C-alpha cells in the first residue's frame, strides 16, 4: 500500500517562501479562523508590497492590523473594514488601495479561482456602485455581472486539526473563508491547533483534502489573539 506524502513544515521555512509583492489570501471572519501565528511570522519576516485578500481587516492590534501597521500591505481586497479604524484611516489617506466585494461574491470569486474557473456570473450589486467597471453579460436574456476569479500566490489558513498530508478540519464559525482559500493559491500554508497522525481525521470529516495543501505547521500554543474578545 502507498502512503500519503508528508508536508509538515517549520513555520519560519513555510512563510519564507512568500516573496515581496505576493498576493496573499488570509482565512478568517473576525477572530475565528484567522491565521494569527502565520501573520505574526509574516510581520516578523517583513515581506513588502503585499496584496492581501481577507473578509475583513480584523480589529486594531490583531491579525491583518499588524500587517497594516508595519506598512507591508499595498492593496486589500475585502468586504468590510469597519471594525478597524487604522484600515479606514489608511484607506482615506490613500496609504492603501482597497477593493470592496460583496461578501458572498468574494467567497465565490475565491472559490472560482480554486475551482479553475475564469469567473462567475451574478446579478448581485447589478444596479449599485459595486457594478462599476464590471463587464455585463446576458444570460437567458437577463443581465449579469462578470465577477472574475481570484487566485493568490499564497494562502494562509487556520485549521483546528490537520494531519501531515494536509487534510484539514475546521471548527464552528472558524471555517468561513478558509476552505475556499485553501483551494485558490499556488502555495497553501495551513497552521493547525492540533496535528494528528494520518488517519486521525475520519475521511468523511475532512473539510479540505490535503491534495490542496502544500505545508502544514503545528501551532505550539494558541496565543491570546485567538481568544474571546472582551469589548
Amino acid at each position, binding site marked *: 500500500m502507498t502512503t500519503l506524502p508528508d508536508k509538515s513544515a517549520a513555520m519560519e521555512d513555510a512563510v519564507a517562501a512568500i516573496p515581496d509583492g505576493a498576493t496573499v489570501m488570509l482565512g478568517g471572519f473576525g477572530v475565528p479562523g484567522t491565521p494569527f501565528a502565520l501573520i505574526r511570522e509574516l510581520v516578523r519576516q517583513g515581506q513588502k508590497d503585499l496584496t492581501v485578500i481577507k473578509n475583513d481587516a480584523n480589529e486594531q492590534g490583531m491579525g491583518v492590523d499588524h500587517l497594516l501597521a508595519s506598512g507591508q500591505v499595498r492593496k486589500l481586497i475585502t468586504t468590510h473594514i469597519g471594525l478597524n479604524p487604522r484600515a479606514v484611516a489608511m484607506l482615506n489617506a490613500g496609504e492603501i488601495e482597497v477593493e*470592496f466585494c460583496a461578501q*458572498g461574491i468574494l467567497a465565490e470569486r475565491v472559490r472560482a479561482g480554486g475551482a479553475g474557473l475564469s469567473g462567475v456570473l451574478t446579478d448581485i450589486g447589478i444596479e449599485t456602485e459595486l457594478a462599476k467597471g464590471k463587464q455585463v453579460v446576458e444570460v437567458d436574456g437577463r443581465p449579469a455581472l462578470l465577477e472574475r476569479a481570484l487566485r493568490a500566490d499564497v494562502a494562509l489558513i487556520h485549521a483546528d486539526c490537520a494531519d501531515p498530508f494536509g487534510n484539514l478540519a475546521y471548527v464552528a*464559525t*472558524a*471555517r468561513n473563508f478558509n476552505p475556499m482559500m485553501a483551494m485558490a493559491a499556488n502555495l497553501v500554508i495551513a497552521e493547525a491547533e492540533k496535528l494528528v497522525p494520518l488517519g486521525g481525521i475520519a475521511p468523511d470529516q475532512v473539510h479540505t483534502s490535503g491534495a490542496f495543501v502544500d505545508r502544514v505547521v503545528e501551532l505550539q500554543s494558541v496565543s491570546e489573539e485567538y481568544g474571546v474578545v472582551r469589548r
Partner: protein
Amino acid sequence: MSDAKARMIARAAREIAPGMVVNLGIGLPTKVVDHLAAGFPVCLHTENGMTGIGPSLPPDRADRNLIDAGGAYVSPVPGSAYFDSAASFALVRSGRLDLTMLGAFEVSQNGDLANWKIPGKFSPGAGGAIELAQKARRVVVLTTHTDRAGQPKLLQRCTLPLTARGCVARIFTDMAVIDVTPQGFALREIAEGLEPEQVIAATGAPLCLPEGDLPRF
C-alpha cells in the same frame, strides 16, 4: 432602550412565521430573537456560516470560535450546522432565506434601501448586506423613524448609495409599521400614544392611511 423601541422589536418578532429561515441583521434586529417563544420552530441563519443560532453568550461563557456576523458570541441549538462562507451565501442567493431584518440609513417609498455607506463619512464596505437585501424572499427594516438630528429616514428617494433597489417590503419603526406598496408608503399600525399626524410629520414621503381602525402596538 426606549419603551417604543422595545415595543417595535416585540412587534417585529411577530413577523416571523413558524418554519422560516431567518437572518437577523446586526444591531436592533438581533434582539428580535429574545421575543420568540421557547420551542418556536424557526431556523436562524448567520452569514458567517451557521444555521441554528441559540442565545448569545457573555465573554466568560463564550466559545472563541463561535460568533455571529456582528461578532457577538452565540451558542448552538440541537441541530445546528456550520458551513463555509460560499455555502452560507449560496443559501441567501438561491432563495432559501425566507426573511431578513435589516437596519437602515434611508428607505425610499419604492423600497430602495441604503444602509452601508455615507460618502465621506462612513465607507467600511458592505459586507453581506447587499446579498441579504437583494435576495432574501422578504426584507423588512427595523429602524428609528428619524435620525439623531430628527430628520426622516423614510424618504421619497434615497440620497445615499443604495444597498439594493426596491427590496424592502415592510418597515418597523418606533412610531409605526409601514408597508412599501405600489402606491408608496402605507401606514399599517401605529405605536401606542401616537396620532397619525405625528407619523406623517416625521415621514419624508406621502403616507397612505387605511380606512377604519389603525391597530396599535
